[in-house]
């Protein structure tokens, strides 16, 4: 495993640091959270990958959105995502963040999570097995290596569009914009 390669550590220590210490926010979104406690306990041990759950979004850099997202939960997700320090990575876990999943014609869930916060990777399944989280983490490592996991940069660049989408869904939002939005033409 390239965790032990000293030359890589000496050349790009920051990237290796981001890869091998992904701390996940313990945000229990929907029904998919039932798959996370087996992953972080003794049977499928996620700590050997460097993934541990932390209590606050201020200390985390991985956001795992498991399960369906209702309109009320989306408010909490946006506030949590904006509190995390950069660089941060988001993974949509399950079919419901991808395209609505089982609740594709429901009046109270959002269908595509990508319209409201940027997502780096998806895991399909209803529910995926715990090994799927490990496959996602390893895939996220290769993405970080190639500099393709740039969800946070896209959020900063297209913040006007994201904020417009969020306001179209909720009406006015109680919190101010995270990055300054320029004047509309």
């Amino acid at each position, binding site marked *: 495993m390239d965790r032990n390669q000293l030359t890589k550590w000496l050349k790009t*220590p920051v990237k290796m640091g*981001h890869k091998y*210490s992904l701390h996940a926010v313990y945000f229990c979104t929907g029904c998919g959270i039932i798959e996370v406690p087996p992953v972080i306990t003794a049977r499928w041990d996620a700590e*050997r990958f460097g993934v541990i759950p932390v*209590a*606050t979004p201020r*200390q985390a*850099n991985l956001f795992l959105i498991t399960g369906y997202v209702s309109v009320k939960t989306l408010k909490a997700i946006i506030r949590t995502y904006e509190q995390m*320090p950069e*660089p941060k990575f988001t993974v949509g876990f399950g079919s419901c963040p991808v395209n609505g999943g089982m609740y594709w014609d429901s009046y109270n869930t959002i269908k595509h999570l990508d319209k409201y916060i940027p997502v780096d990777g998806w895991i399909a399944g209803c529910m995926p097995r715990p090994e799927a989280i490990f496959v996602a983490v390893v895939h996220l490592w290769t993405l970080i290596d190639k500099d393709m996991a740039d969800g946070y940069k896209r959020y900063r660049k297209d913040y006007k569009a994201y904020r417009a989408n969020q306001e179209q869904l909720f009406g006015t939002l109680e919190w101010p914009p995270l990055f300054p939005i320029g004047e509309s033409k």
Partner: protein
Amino acid sequence: MHVVEIIVSPLLALIIGIFFLGLSRKIMARIHWRYGPPITQPVIDVIRLFSQKAFSHGMMFNLGIILSLAGSFVLILFLPMGNICPLSNSGGMLVILYVMLLAPLGIALSGGEAANPNVSIGISRKLIIALGYEVPLLLVLLTIMTRYHTISIVEIVRIQQNTTWALLDLPLLLSGIAYILILPAILGVRPFEIVQAPQEISSGPMAEYGGPFLALATIQHALSLFIGIALFVNLFLGGAGNPFTFFLKMLVVFILVLFINAALPRLRVEQAVKYLWRWPTLISLAGMIIILIIRR
């Protein structure tokens, strides 16, 4: 030579402290029958945390954690590790007693700026626990100072090297037992892991720390671990002639503390203070009375 010692000693403490943090995660994982992260995992965490761009709440928020870290670094200079002790003639144990309180105070200062009620609860718990273990700790330290007629910790180590360990010295046995009983409270391991309770108060005072602040808080945690164990080894297990034996003794004590950490749950803060003010205080008081009688 003196300057080299002043530079080398905190660096050595930092390396050993971080090694202990990684070792604790690995040993706890093996106790749980799983593999666990590599031993260098805290180093990876600190590298990643320093490269993040976090949000600061104000000037006092930045300065508080730096004050706490500075207090811990300065305290290292007063503790002998084997035969390395830069500031050996400068007050010894009394200075250690005072400077040991800078760490919680620094974190309390920065937590006052963060507008999070979890942080306030965590800081109040930290200060209450400090109040809890200071009473028996003070009695034990006074007992040792009375027995060996000195306040210099280097002198105490030298006397123990010549005669025997203080733990095996029969009049000091009760004080030694009292110190062993309060050692988990000083280190912040279970059953006294009340300050950082991730499930209850979202990791207490560190709830608003992100990025570089959390890296500094991790380093401060490593140093406070080192200080707690080093003080016990110096006072009761005889110190050592060279650093290697010293670190070996620290390792044995640390692994025993980890075994207690793995087996016990967490106490509430009022239960912890009730315990700390009852049995360890009585035992250390009895030890002090024995020493005063013998001296007469």
